[in-house]
């Protein structure tokens, strides 16, 4: 698989580490209400779809950026690659 890095261009997926579901960007509030339940869902439960999937990859052997990759889990086709930072910011986060 080739991951089209937004800053570095097309790179071999071998340079990256796969972390998992993109939802891990949205860490629940540990002090908030239902924190235990929310953390259980955040850490352990997954949609695990067959088809389009948004997931976190880490460019370990490159610029060490975190990326959100939209990929098909059935065909391995990659549709879109964004910097995780940009995705988080677009959700109103400061960094």
């Amino acid at each position, binding site marked *: *698989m080739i991951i089209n890095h937004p800053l570095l261009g097309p790179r071999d*997926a071998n340079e990256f580490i796969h972390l*998992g579901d993109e939802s891990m960007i949205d860490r629940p509030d540990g002090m908030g209400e239902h924190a235990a339940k929310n953390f259980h869902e955040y*850490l352990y*439960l997954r949609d695990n*779809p*067959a088809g389009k*999937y948004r997931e976190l990859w880490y460019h370990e052997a490159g610029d060490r950026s975190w990326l959100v990759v939209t990929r098909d889990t059935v*065909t*391995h086709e990659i549709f879109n690659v964004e910097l995780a930072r940009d995705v988080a910011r677009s959700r109103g986060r400061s960094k």
Partner: protein
Amino acid sequence: MRYSAFGILKQGLTGNKGWKPVWREPEPKKSYDYIIVGGGGHGLATAHYLAKVYGGKNIAVLEKGWIGSGNIGRNTTIVRSNYGLEGNQPFYEMSLKLWEGLEQDLNYNAMMSQRGILNLAHSDGQRDAYAKRGNAMLMSGADAELLDRAAIQKMCPFLNFDNERFPIKAGLLQRRAGTARHDAVAWGYARSADLHGVDIIQNCEVTGFQMKNGKCLGVQTSKGMIKAKKTAVCVAGASSRVMEKAGMRLPIESHVLQAFVSEGLKPTIPGVITYGAGHFYVSQSDKGGLVFGGDLDGYNSYAQRGNLPVVEDVCSGGMSIMPMIGRARLLRMWGGVMDMSMDGSPFIDKTGIEGLYFNGGWCYGGFKATPASGYCYAHLLATDTSHENASQMRLDRFIRGNMIDEKGVGAQPNLH
């Protein structure tokens, strides 16, 4: 028809014209007491033990494709009970004991061969960890031996003992471990279940559940609606896709694992060997092919095929520990979809929905579990209580903080 040496002789002398199909191909009835979704090893084993041991009647197994088309027909067939944790080891030892009597129980040749498994250790720390694991195995009634370098040298002179970085320091040997013929396990269980009256219905995909007031009353299938008092899902790599239809999210990700077979060679590898410094395991099939594998590809996949970087990784692991395999040519390779759980251990449990049960999360270790998984799932279905050896394999163990994490890597399915 019972198989026997006399029967084979008789058929041989009469042109092999008397063999009959091994199981019926019935149309589904309108309703059953038990529906098992998924005709893989675990589903068929569940049907067998439910009918034979627990006296269950009116049972159907619904299989989307054909029996054996899933992971039961795709795995590298290693059978062992060398786990370290309490939640696992007694279960796997129960399974190994069932394997030892399986062919008599099923009257079917599953080619179970106890040729042993040797896990190599390459550092003092790893040797000590294996010593600890061996003790846990002994405490569960399993066999385990810690071998020193000289003993391994005698047993497997072809290994790379002088690798500067990863010298072989010791090995954990389980002599009762081994391999079995994967398809034959599915066929043997299917035949036995069928003889006990179980309807095995192939080409019947479950597309949804019939729910009423939080109760599961049956399943929608490509062959119409079928009612069931109890519905038992057992679909391995498809677990999330099927349980989603019941509104459940699981602590599971689906990942692809590849396997490889070389051309046929003369007998060279005594049993199963695993490399402790890279991820590589190998055995030799009865036909002579080296059967080997290694890591997951590492990203979620339902593709039943992997990519080349892992091929390179597995083969270089093999070259590092067993340089002689560099001369062998690869004959074929394939992938299977693994139900990787968040702690690397499985589930055999009720769900929050009455009448709906779940078995899955087998990762890449579910072949060896087939007999015990079927037995314990049948126990759960028949008695509505967990079998003592599967009592920790619960869906709610994460929220209770009771993970069964053999490797200790946390909620990271691609590392288990």
